[in-house]
């Protein structure tokens, strides 16, 4: 590049000779140089801008064309993608602890109609009413002809019904595929599983949602597409559940009870192995049950979890455990059982006016189930401490378990916790709690003293709960309960080989009008732990208004009702859970002796 001088000598000399200012020439030349520089840089910038614009145009054009093709073309599935993903189950199966199916899905069809396409609405309505007795031909015909363009006829069809609808052959009838929840075991574990219903319904599919029990509680897990192929494993054992329900039903029928419930729980993990509530229902057909006015008569009502009852003398062991825990007494300490007394205006009496003499050892108070003895224990402990202890056992809260119904089953007790409550609570009155809470509390008391939280889900890892009582107290409490079975109120529960330990409880139901208790209507409970030498399982059995009529006068105490039923259950499930019967030292005289009668009642 040739550099143009700013002050060309020739022009300067010329200007000087003419007397002009040579600086003007310099300025002129400088301006010219700047102009040239500006022109070149503008051209360069223009080029760059155009290039950039082209780039943007190209990329937007690519995106635009791609969007256009995607919008215009028909969608296809990526066929080359690796297959093998499960498409069938939209809701995960539920299986028991050994993998046996409790709930699964079945492909079925829903029937819907598009009345515009119907050739013969009247004839079709007649034919459909013939297939499905619950449909009304006239009503159906009216709905076919009132101008609507779409209507559901039936939510699920069996294959036979579908074939018969096919045979009607009307082009206005359509089938929509449905995945239906199926409980192959029928009424088995009905209260645990709960039930399902269709949520949002479409022509090609319908959403299945849990409406009660575990199905509702685990809705998120069961309907999670990522986990739909892995079944939800429960802690329930199908065999134990079936056995328990069978024995419980037999017991309920022979004792004329209007309801019954039982829970079998692992004392260490809190896993519920079986839980039954009778009367029960078929979760496949939940809709068929009408709600009655009294919830406790409704088959849908889960007595084991939802039922909040005063559980009677089964609570005495808690008072006994607490006095031992506080160091106030040992099993041999003599407790005053002399005579009925009053707390405020509230009289404390023995059941049926029994008299157990001036004093009894703590162990005997539990064995014969003395109310007065237990009341004295309550007074020894004091209200604050007693309430704290019952709370630490979980008895004063709603049961914690994976069922939606559990949340509403709050324990009931009088506020504030005054002396009357303290005294009555020590023998199980004035405090109403769920049966599941009782089972968990017994598990806590007998497993060495660590808190047990009941669960329905099977897991290999269990975290030990916080300590509630010491191991010594736990052992002493189990020994006391063992004495209840060997020499006390629950001798019918002495199943050879299983060292059953337990505590009976009979509670009269409050009268409907709220004035006092009804002597003829009782709730009998037997809470047991076995085997006593190394507690493994807790079994709680409760019967609602049972009466034993085999003898000369009707018997309504737990020793004659709940205890034999519990014994029958233990006899059946003992071998099933794989417990080896323990050989006990017996003498010939003991073998030949007739079975002992329960010594005294409550």
């Amino acid at each position, binding site marked *: 590049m040739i550099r143009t001088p700013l002050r060309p000598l020739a022009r300067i000399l010329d200007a000087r000779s003419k007397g002009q200012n040579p600086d003007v020439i310099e300025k002129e030349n400088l301006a010219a140089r700047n102009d040239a520089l500006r022109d070149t840089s503008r051209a360069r910038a223009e080029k760059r801008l155009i290039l950039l614009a082209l780039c943007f145009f190209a990329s937007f054009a690519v995106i635009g064309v791609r969007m256009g093709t995607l919008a215009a073309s028909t969608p296809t599935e990526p066929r080359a993608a690796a*297959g093998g993903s499960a498409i069938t189950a939209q809701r995960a199966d539920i299986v028991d602890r050994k993998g*046996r199916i409790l709930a699964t899905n*079945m*492909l079925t069809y829903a029937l819907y109609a598009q009345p515009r396409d119907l050739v013969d609405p009247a004839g079709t309505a007649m034919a459909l009413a013939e297939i499905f007795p619950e449909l009304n031909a006239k009503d159906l015909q009216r709905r076919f002809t009132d101008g609507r363009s779409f209507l559901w006829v039936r939510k699920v069809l069996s294959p036979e019904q579908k074939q018969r609808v096919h045979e009607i052959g009307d082009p206005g009838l359509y089938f929509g595929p449905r995945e239906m929840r199926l409980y*192959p075991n029928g009424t088995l574990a009905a209260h645990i599983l709960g039930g399902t219903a269709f949520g949002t319904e479409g022509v090609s599919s319908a959403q299945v949602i849990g409406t009660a029990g575990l199905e509702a509680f685990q809705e998120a897990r069961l309907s999670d597409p990522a986990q739909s192929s892995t079944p939800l494993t429960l802690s329930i054992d199908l065999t134990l559940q079936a056995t328990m329900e*069978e024995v419980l039903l037999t017991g309920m029928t022979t004792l004329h009870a209007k309801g019954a419930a039982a829970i079998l729980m692992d004392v260490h993990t809190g896993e519920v192995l079986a839980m039954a509530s009778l009367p029960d229902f078929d979760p496949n057909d939940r809709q068929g049950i009408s709600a009655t006015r009294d919830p406790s008569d409704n088959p849908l009502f889960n007595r084991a979890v939802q039922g909040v009852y005063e559980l009677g003398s089964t609570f005495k062991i808690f008072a006994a455990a607490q006095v031992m825990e506080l160091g106030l007494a040992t099993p041999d300490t003599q407790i005053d059982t002399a005579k009925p007394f009053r707390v405020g205006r509230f009289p404390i009496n023995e059941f049926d006016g029994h008299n157990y003499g001036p004093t009894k050892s703590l162990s005997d108070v539990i064995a014969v189930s003395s109310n007065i003895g237990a009341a004295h224990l309550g007074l020894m402990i004091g209200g604050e401490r007693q309430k704290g202890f019952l709370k630490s056992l979980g008895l004063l809260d709603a049961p914690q378990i994976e069922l939606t119904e559990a949340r509403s089953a709050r324990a009931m007790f009088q506020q504030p916790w005054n002396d009357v409550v303290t005294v009555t609570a020590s023998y199980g009155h004035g405090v109403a709690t769920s049966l599941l809470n009782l089972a968990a509390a017994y598990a806590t008391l007998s497993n060495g003293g660590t808190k047990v939280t009941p669960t329905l889900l099977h897991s290999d890892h269990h975290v030990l709960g916080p300590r509630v009582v010491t191991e010594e107290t736990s052992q002493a409490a189990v020994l006391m309960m063992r004495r209840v079975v060997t020499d006390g109120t629950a001798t019918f529960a002495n199943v050879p080989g299983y060292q059953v330990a337990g505590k009976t409880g009979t509670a009269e139901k409050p009268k409907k009008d709220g004035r006092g208790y009804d002597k003829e209507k009782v709730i009998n409970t037997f809470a047991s732990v076995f085997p006593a030498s190394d507690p493994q399982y807790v079994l709680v059995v409760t019967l609602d208004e049972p009466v034993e009529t085999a003898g000369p006068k009707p018997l309504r105490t737990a020793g004659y009702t709940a205890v034999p039923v519990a014994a029958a259950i233990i006899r059946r499930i003992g*071998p099933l859970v794989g417990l080896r019967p323990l050989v006990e030292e017996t003498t010939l005289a003991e073998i030949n002796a007739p079975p002992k009668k329960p010594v005294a009642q409550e």
Partner: protein
Amino acid sequence: MRPFLSILSFILVMTLAFWAYRENYATQTQLKDMAKVQNQIAALRDEIAMQKAEWAYLNRPTRLRDLAAMNFDRLGLMPMAALQLGAASDVAMPVAEPLLISGEVQADGALAPVLVGSEGAQIP
């Protein structure tokens, strides 16, 4: 040389085109086959789910209980009881038959007394 090269490249292009054409259709056939197989898999899965449900239904405890009651005598069943349980070590093992050695026994090499059989019969 130049015409030869162009003919060669033409042939090459035609061969490649033919190959690509065939590959294209082979791929499409494969995709169709795969779609068919996947549909089959889905159908089979449906059937398996159905069979499992059926199996669970047939094995429901109430039915098994009824069947057991029905065939109680014929099969000589016994109600399950605690007494039937025991440890594996309590089961008597079959008594081993002592070796039947008659006549002359010939042995080679050095002999040491060896315990044989459950009866403790020794071969000298």
